[in-house]
């Protein structure tokens, strides 16, 4: 077995694990987005490592899929950042927690009734 493939497999697993840890331990939306992007990076690395990238002729199909994945990741991140800015505008907070969300929903419902 190619030792480089093993190194990158372990890296992929570590990066995914760190991303999941970051997602779970933080309430800051910006940090959660960074963590989700880390998790994505770990999965991309796994796909390419298993696609034979470490030896011989690389498989172009996983490469094309990861390239698509990178563009989808930046699109989703950009949309999420727009949501974050809106959330900050509405609630004054950069964090997500159950109480804040419940308050925001209650406000929105009250506004809708006023109209």
């Amino acid at each position, binding site marked *: *077995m190619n030792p480089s493939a093993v190194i990158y497999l372990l890296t992929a697993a*570590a990066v995914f694990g760190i991303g999941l840890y*970051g997602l779970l331990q933080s309430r*800051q939306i910006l940090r959660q987005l960074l963590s989700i992007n880390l998790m994505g990076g770990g999965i991309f690395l796994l796909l*390419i490592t298993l696609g034979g*990238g*470490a030896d011989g002729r690389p498989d172009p199909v996983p490469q094309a899929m990861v390239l698509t994945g*990178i*563009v989808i990741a930046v699109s989703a991140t*950009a949309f999420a950042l727009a949501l974050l800015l809106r959330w900050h505008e509405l609630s004054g907070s950069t964090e997500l927690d159950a109480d804040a969300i419940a308050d925001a929903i209650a406000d929105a419902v009250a506004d809708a009734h006023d109209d």
Partner: protein
Amino acid sequence: MIGLAIDSVLALGIVWLALQTVRSVSMLQAVLMFIVFGLLMSLAWARLHAPDLALAEAAIGAGITGALLLVTWRRLQADGHDPVDSELPAQSKWLTIPTACAAALLIVIVGWIALQLPAVPGTAGDLAWQRLGEIGVSNPVTGVLLGFRAYDTLMEMAVLLAAWLGARAVATTYRPGALPGPVHVEVPLVGALLSLVVPISILVAVYLLQAGGSAPGGAFQGGAVLAAGGVLLFLTGRLEAAPRTSGLERVGLILGIAVFSLMGLMVMATGGHMLALPGAWAIYLVETALLLSIALSLVLLFAAAPGLRRMS
């Protein structure tokens, strides 16, 4: 041997930067660590014989994503403080590390088993290599993106457009000065820098597009480099947010999807399969449209504005 040493150092660097991204107290530091993480990832792609990904990661993953994260951080900053994580409840806190370790272990096990499997001939990748000649390009990744899996690429453009539409829909307030802080319009070096960097970004984007047929590159990498030029023009105040999306911008945003779909349908009219682009000229035509749409979408997402206009 040297290769193995490089891989090990890269791997250690990537894991360390990922840890710093989630552990930094300062959110700005976390964002910066993530950008450097992207740069090391692009070196890892180069080591894994995926130069197309290396370019995409550097331009999109580290570059554009980093710029978007930084500008959002800056906009959140406008009212003062660097947000800091609040404490989690104790019971959740103790579960995070075991959960993350279990997920990592699962990936190691799955990956380890997959690496042990014998190579099976006749995979999609083998077919792509064998039939690359029919597509008219010699870069296999471009061949897969625009030839064998063109649906994916078309839908990817739809996702980018949807992301922009979504971002527009939630940003209800129009803020012309969406980017707080002084804009150094009058510093003479800025003009000199722009007159150098912006033409180079256009040149590099066109080169990447042209090279994409036979060498690493393509519409996505080129689009991101062109977008970087646009972001620079916005940051230095040469372009400013406009309250409306102009007709030209609307055309630009849908150009990629429109040209791609029309070409795909035209092929059907002449008896071929849908989206089976007839030769290299069609691929370059579609990629040019994709490049313009990608660049415009990314700059508009960065500006968080309906449109752009020249600074009055």
